[in-house]
């Protein structure tokens, strides 16, 4: 003698429908909990995937070296700075295949009355494509190293996002104001780069590129902002990094894509755990809500339980009937929460600081870098099933209480 599962769920549905408001509120609690978990996990893993993709673009055999001063803009005095001598020294280290020094400044780029925030970068034009794999010219040519007015602009400078009109084109003048300076520099656009996006937190599309020599003259400094050190093979990276660090001590900051990846991974995984546990707490609160609702329900339906016993329902069947109400609440909450979480994760994604429009020099400068939430099948499945599991746990004790009720006492209950 076995009750049909479909009958049990039909009865459970009728019981939930009978107490509409209470059921809706309980389910809402579950929905919010599971939505928060899904949204937070999806967006934080989306964030980490996005950052990792940026880092990986630079290639596993490239290190960046910058003077430790770079992060403290107002600092000065006797702080160490990188010069051509350092380029030669590092180039002589074993395992190093190339050293590409660069100048980099935050800049306001204007043309024809409108302007955007971006960066100015002085770098050997031929090294550009070596560094940024997949980058190409959209139009024109790369700037002549000995023409101080020649520049190549990122795609977003030529074709600003959200604007139908071209900001600038080939052989047009473009004006660049550096940082907080009041005077500006003028360049002639010789080339427009293809749309590329962000790499290492700086957005290529918002950057105007001039030759290293031009930058040296225009910025009036022999000291570079930093340099890319390319090794022969990715396995040389660790040794080269060690050699540079032991040679310069704390005067320079050496970053390898691998190290950055692992530090980003550890930050984002902590973020995921942290955000996930916030969702977990809200689901726990929802679970307490289920337990509470079910206790009230079991108490209210004491007489009904007595009737079921008299009609010959076994304790396990009665337990199953009450548990199935919890399962149903959990399932509806899980489906609703998954849909809600899906929508919510895109809202969160849009609000994250990394995907907004803020543009700063050097670090996290990526303007149009977007991080869309990542939904793995496992995550969706988890988001659908976890609330059911929680609901079962929450409903277990009330359902057990219902099952072991004394029939005679239950039937007398008013």
């Amino acid at each position, binding site marked *: 003698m076995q*009750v049909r599962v479909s009958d049990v769920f039909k009865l459970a549905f009728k019981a939930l429908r009978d107490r509409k408001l209470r059921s809706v509120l309980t389910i809402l609690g579950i929905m919010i909990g599971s939505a928060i978990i899904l949204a937070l996990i999806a967006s934080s893993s989306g964030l980490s995937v996005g950052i990792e993709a940026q880092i990986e673009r630079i290639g596993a055999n490239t290190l960046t070296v910058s003077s430790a001063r770079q992060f403290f803009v107002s600092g000065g005095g006797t702080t160490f700075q990188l010069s051509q001598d350092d380029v030669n020294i590092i180039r002589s280290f074993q395992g190093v295949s190339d050293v590409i020094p660069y100048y980099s400044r935050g800049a306001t780029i204007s043309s024809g009355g409108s302007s955007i925030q971006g960066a100015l970068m002085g770098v050997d034009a031929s090294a550009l494509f070596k560094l940024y794999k997949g980058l190409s010219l959209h139009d024109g040519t790369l700037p002549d190293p000995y023409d101080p007015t020649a520049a190549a602009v990122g795609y977003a400078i030529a074709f600003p996002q959200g604007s139908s009109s071209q900001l600038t084109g080939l052989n047009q003048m473009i004006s660049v104001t550096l940082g907080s300076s009041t005077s500006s520099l003028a360049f002639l656009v010789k080339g427009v780069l293809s749309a590329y996006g962000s790499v290492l937190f700086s957005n290529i599309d918002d950057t105007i590129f001039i030759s290293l020599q031009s930058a040296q003259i225009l910025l009036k400094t022999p000291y570079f902002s930093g340099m890319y050190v390319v090794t022969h093979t990715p396995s040389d990276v660790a040794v080269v990094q060690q050699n540079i660090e032991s040679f310069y001590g704390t005067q320079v900051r050496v970053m390898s894509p691998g190290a950055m990846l692992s530090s980003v991974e550890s930050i984002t995984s902590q973020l995921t755990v942290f955000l996930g546990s916030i969702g977990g707490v809200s689901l726990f609160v929802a679970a307490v809500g289920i337990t509470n609702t079910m206790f009230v329900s079991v108490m209210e339906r004491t007489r*009904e339980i*007595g009737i079921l016993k*008299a009609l*010959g*329902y076994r*304790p396990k069947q009665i337990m199953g009937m009450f548990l199935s109400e919890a399962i149903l609440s959990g399932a509806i909450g899980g489906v609703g929460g998954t849909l809600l979480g899906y929508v919510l994760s895109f809202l969160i994604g849009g609000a994250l600081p990394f995907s907004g429009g803020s543009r700063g020099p050097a670090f996290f400068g990526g303007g149009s870098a977007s991080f869309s939430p990542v939904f793995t099948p496992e995550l969706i499945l988890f988001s659908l099933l976890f609330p059911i599991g929680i609901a079962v746990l929450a409903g277990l004790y009330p359902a057990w209480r219902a099952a072991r009720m004394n029939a005679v006492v239950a039937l007398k209950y008013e």
Partner: protein
Amino acid sequence: MGCSLVEPKMPMSAPAVQTMDVTKVYRVGHIEYPALRGVSLKIGRGELVSIVGPSGSGKSTLLNLIGALDPPTSGRVFIDGINLRKLNEDQLALLRNRRIGFVYQSFNLIQRLTAIENVEMPLIARGLPEMDRKSISLKMLSAVGLRREANKRPTELSGGEQQRVAIARALVTQPTLVLADEPTGNVDSKTTREVLNHIVQVNKTFGTTFVLVTHNPEVFNMTYRIITLKDGLIEREQYLQRIDSYPGA
């Protein structure tokens, strides 16, 4: 599952109900209240018996023991020759589902379910498919004259109609024994007669054993035997008709 324990194998001569020196003591804190103090009775198959007595005489307690809803403190209860003490919770539930129907003074219908859904409940416990359930339940409702009310909820039915639904639910499993606790306590005299006629008809047609707890003379006067309880003991037994007129005899 212990289907085999409950299913047949019992001697055909076994009475429908037999109690042997049954006592029931309720404890509240350290104080004991004896509800039954040694009741022995035999109710044959197809009998129509009433149990009467003043309030607190132990009528309902006895009915609950016979209905396998509550174990006695001492003594033994047999249903169709099956010693209830030897059955576990699940087997007792199975026995109730297969062999016993209950009818209560307060109807005890599930309010959120329609009349037919209420009647279906014991069949759901059996795992009967919905189609079969519906047709059997509808036949049962038709038999008590409520075919048109099948999809109404208890709140939309009169007291008499609700009690007829409850009777349909008690009979839908074709039990061998029906236990009714004040079945006419909450219905008017016209409905009382209808309910009684139905009980007598089922008793005669199917040989179903009925045990009715009642205060109502109209009810106990139409049973074959009246058992009077007082202070937890059988005070008197009266036969109103000859034993050989029992349908099952």
